[in-house]
């Protein structure tokens, strides 16, 4: 029994059948790549996991929960994180704040009215975010405004944000596209130990990967 089970998923847009009878069973602690040419339906499939799209038929079960009809934040709280194809980060906030937010989400859940406590006083969150930045080698950039970084750095930041949540399933949509060679290697270095120690599956879609 896998942690992520997909049965008979169909999704069509008008007359176009993007997904047809997709069945997939993913075991804990494994890495998978979904590959295919443009328009093959890789992103559609991913979108069905994170609640962005609802399949026409079929079931998507993660860790015993059905993901159908769940909102993105609910799916994330069950343990599914996603890195987008174009970096989705909080561009007006500092790098450090970007990483703190998923830490808060992990600790406090989907909503917490902590309007009078202080970000400054959250020792555990700050330590964790700091550690994560050290892990992805971005600690020197912690006070930079996120939007002023390079695309590769933004991707690394987004990855750090997802990893900070200790997800059970990490979905990466073209994680190394647009990165410099050195950054690509860094990313791989960062991801591989994660898999080995905690055994989480990862996804990547589209194109032939340089490393898988």
């Amino acid at each position, binding site marked *: 029994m896998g942690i992520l089970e997909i049965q008979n998923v169909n999704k069509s847009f008008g007359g176009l059948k993007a997904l047809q009878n997709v069945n997939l069973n993913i075991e804990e602690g494994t890495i998978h790549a979904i590959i295919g040419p443009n328009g093959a339906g890789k992103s559609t499939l991913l979108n069905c996991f*994170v609640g962005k799209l609802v399949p026409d038929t079929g079931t998507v079960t993660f860790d015993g929960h059905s993901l159908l009809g769940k*909102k*993105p*934040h609910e799916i*994330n*709280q069950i343990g599914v*994180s*996603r890195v*987008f194809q174009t970096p*989705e*980060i*909080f*561009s*007006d*906030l*500092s790098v450090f*704040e970007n990483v*703190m*937010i*998923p830490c*808060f*989400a*992990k600790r*406090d*859940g*989907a*909503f*917490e*009215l*902590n*309007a*009078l*406590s*202080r*970000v*400054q*006083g*959250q020792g555990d*969150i700050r330590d964790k975010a700091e550690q994560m930045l050290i892990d992805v080698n971005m600690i020197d*950039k912690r*006070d*930079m*405004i996120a939007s*002023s*970084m*390079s*695309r*590769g*750095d933004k991707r690394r930041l987004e990855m750090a*944000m997802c990893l900070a*949540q200790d997800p059970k399933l990490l979905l990466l949509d073209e994680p190394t596209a647009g990165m410099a060679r050195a950054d690509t290697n860094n990313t791989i270095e960062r991801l591989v130990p994660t898999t080995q120690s905690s055994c989480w599956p990862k996804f990547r879609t589209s194109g032939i990967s340089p490393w898988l």
Partner: protein
Amino acid sequence: MLGLNKKDTGLFIFVICVTALAPFIMNPFPADSAMAQFNAGYPDLMQRFVIFGIFAIGFNILFGLTGYLSFGHAAFLGAGSYAAVWMFKLLSYNIVPAIILSVIVAGLFSVIIGFISLRRSGIYFSILTLAFAQMSFAMAYSVLTPLTNGETGLQVYNDDPQWLKGNGPDATHFFGLEMRSTFDLDLGAWSFSFNVGYYFCAVLMLVAFYLSMRIFRSPFGLMLRAIKTNQTRLNYTGLNSRPYTLAAFVISGMYAGLAGGLMASMDPLAGAERMQWTASGEVVLMTILGGAGTLLGPLLGAGFIKYFENIFSKINESVLHGWFGFLPDGIENGLIWVIEHFVGSGWHLTLGLLFMLIVIFLPGGLMEGATRIRDRFSGDKTKKDTEGKYAPAGE
């Protein structure tokens, strides 16, 4: 101090000092001089400065942090005022129950409007709030007249029940301390007014300001800022943005209610125009003018606009003649003809021009201007770079 970092503590102390000394600061010119026209240190205007300051501080929590531009916040101000005047009519002129009820009513009201409006974002949200506010205005103006007294405005009448009044004062008071009591201090040619109502509002404004500082620096505030910059990411990070925006909406609605309650407490009348879209637009202007998303900006913006509204609108032709009387007639009349269009009834024009200039040259509002001046004087340009704001993109 008080859970604030050093910089914020400094800012807070600065604001406390300015509000405490406002009667002096606002009246820099001798009472009999020609420049006395520009003095703003009379009780009503000082009260307005701080009350609209509260309104703008609250609005900034929603608009400055989450970026949700509400065009209907005057509805909460109005609801707060009506609630307060009803307390005066039913209980007594004591402003404590009035202010408490006005905050509660505005809070409930904003829960309803916010719950519906926040289903949409961007321009649709703005339009929904605008529609709600206009609806409230129309209802207050006519349909709900038994409750609001329509066009005339809700006032306290001599035959109102005022069950708890007993022998209490006939004017709004804080446990006997009348809001309108004023102590005038004459120092030589100068005259300064110290008004109880002003200091009461000022204390509440400081509390409101302090709370807003705490919210800005809290995890909650961080989430609100995250909503402004990328709501999608926030949702995919496991956070539900709806309750956050609703909480921000309700908090700012309660600030507006507090401001409305205070307005009624200083002057026990609530008119429907207080809910009109122009009033909602005014607080938007205040916030943008001062600097949305900054702590001090909304306060500055509120002061700026209220100053113009009350001081420039009162400069009439005869005042101008007084100023330029020394010039030859032809030049004097010409000059007055030009200036006349920018003062008195033309104060809107002056304000509009200034607003344009500020938005074009200082997109961050007056606060950006203040920052630039400070940076110029300290000559400390490198500091910014280390903060990374202007660091080159390393592609």
